[in-house]
């Protein structure tokens, strides 16, 4: 093989494709877990503000500690700080949402609160951006656009292991999610430890959504759309089947989004976020109309 082509494929395109697969899988499973635990078809890491929490964590370290990110994040310590900040941010928002869900039973209220948390974190990020230096501001804006091509091979190794851990936890939570789908009272009567199940799902979701947001930036709508597409395809609500199917479909959808974002035949690439939104939004609209039809019946 031509050495130039080898560099292009092995050095750049292969890590990018693997990143797309991992991010698609992680976000989709995270969305499925959130939809089941909240019993809300519109729930997902993006809608409930988990990604916004991760963004806030990253914004705090990039914009709040300029010396650490002065050389464009090539310091290994800065990468780890960024990942930890995204995880902590994601976990904090998720725990906040869950604490509220213990008091507020109405799922639409929880959803609205999630959106409000997202807006609140965006407001804090805006304040941080206003007071930050030009170099840090640019680094954060580039990160927030969502890019699958920014992940280096070294980072990809860390990302693979953490996402694999999150996916393993999700696969083992399949049976619990099946029981929780029928409601908390039924789950309790079946002998399920609700708190423990929730903690396992929180950790899994925080690892998955937080890791993807830390490495690739916030990628929207995959987490909401993919579980619905998979349910339509397989006509099943069994998580033992849905989780592997969602993993597969998530990888496929983000690969497809990445291919479309590269504008085949062109020399420029679109932000992957815009493509996932164009694919995901029609699915969300369809879910809203479908729910409306069920309610009117």
């Amino acid at each position, binding site marked *: 093989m031509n050495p130039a082509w080898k560099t*292009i*494929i092995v050095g*750049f*395109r*292969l890590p*990018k*494709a693997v990143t*797309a*697969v991992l991010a698609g899988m992680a976000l989709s499973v995270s969305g499925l877990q959130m939809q089941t635990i909240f019993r809300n078809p519109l729930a997902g890491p993006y809608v409930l503000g988990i990604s916004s929490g991760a963004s806030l964590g990253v914004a705090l370290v990039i914009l709040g500690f300029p010396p650490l990110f002065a*050389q*464009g*994040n*090539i310091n290994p310590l800065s990468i780890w700080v960024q990942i930890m900040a995204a995880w902590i941010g994601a976990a904090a928002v998720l725990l906040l949402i869950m604490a509220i869900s213990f008091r507020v039973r109405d799922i639409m209220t929880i959803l609205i609160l999630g959106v409000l948390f997202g807006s609140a974190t965006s407001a804090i990020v805006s304040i941080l951006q206003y007071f930050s230096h030009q170099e840090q501001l640019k680094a954060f804006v*580039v990160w927030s656009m969502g890019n699958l*091509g*920014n*992940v*280096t091979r070294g980072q990809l190794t860390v990302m693979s292991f953490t996402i694999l851990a999150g996916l393993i936890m999700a696969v083992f939570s399949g049976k619990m999610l099946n029981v929780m789908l029928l409601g908390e009272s039924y789950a309790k009567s079946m002998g399920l430890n609700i708190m423990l199940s929730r903690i396992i799902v929180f950790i899994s979701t925080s690892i998955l959504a937080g890791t993807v947001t830390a490495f690739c930036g916030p990628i929207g709508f995959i987490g909401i759309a993919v579980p619905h597409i998979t349910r339509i*395809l*397989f*006509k*099943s609500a069994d998580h033992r*089947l849905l989780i*592997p*199917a969602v993993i*597969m*479909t998530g*990888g*496929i959808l983000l*690969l*497809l989004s*990445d*291919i479309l974002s*590269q*504008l*085949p035949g*062109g*020399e*420029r*690439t679109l932000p992957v976020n815009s493509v996932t939104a164009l694919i995901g939004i029609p699915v969300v609209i369809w879910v809203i109309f479908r729910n409306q039809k069920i309610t009117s019946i």
Partner: protein
Amino acid sequence: MNMPLKVTLLLVLLCLFFALFILDILIGPVTIPIKDILEIITTGE
């Protein structure tokens, strides 16, 4: 939907997954990560 159909669907998805994975590697412009560019500038390699 019966089990053989679900398994077939999973296999179809698996094939689609690999097809798209190869397509994603083969097409599109070369996108060099910003970090790599910075590393080249910093180290000169």
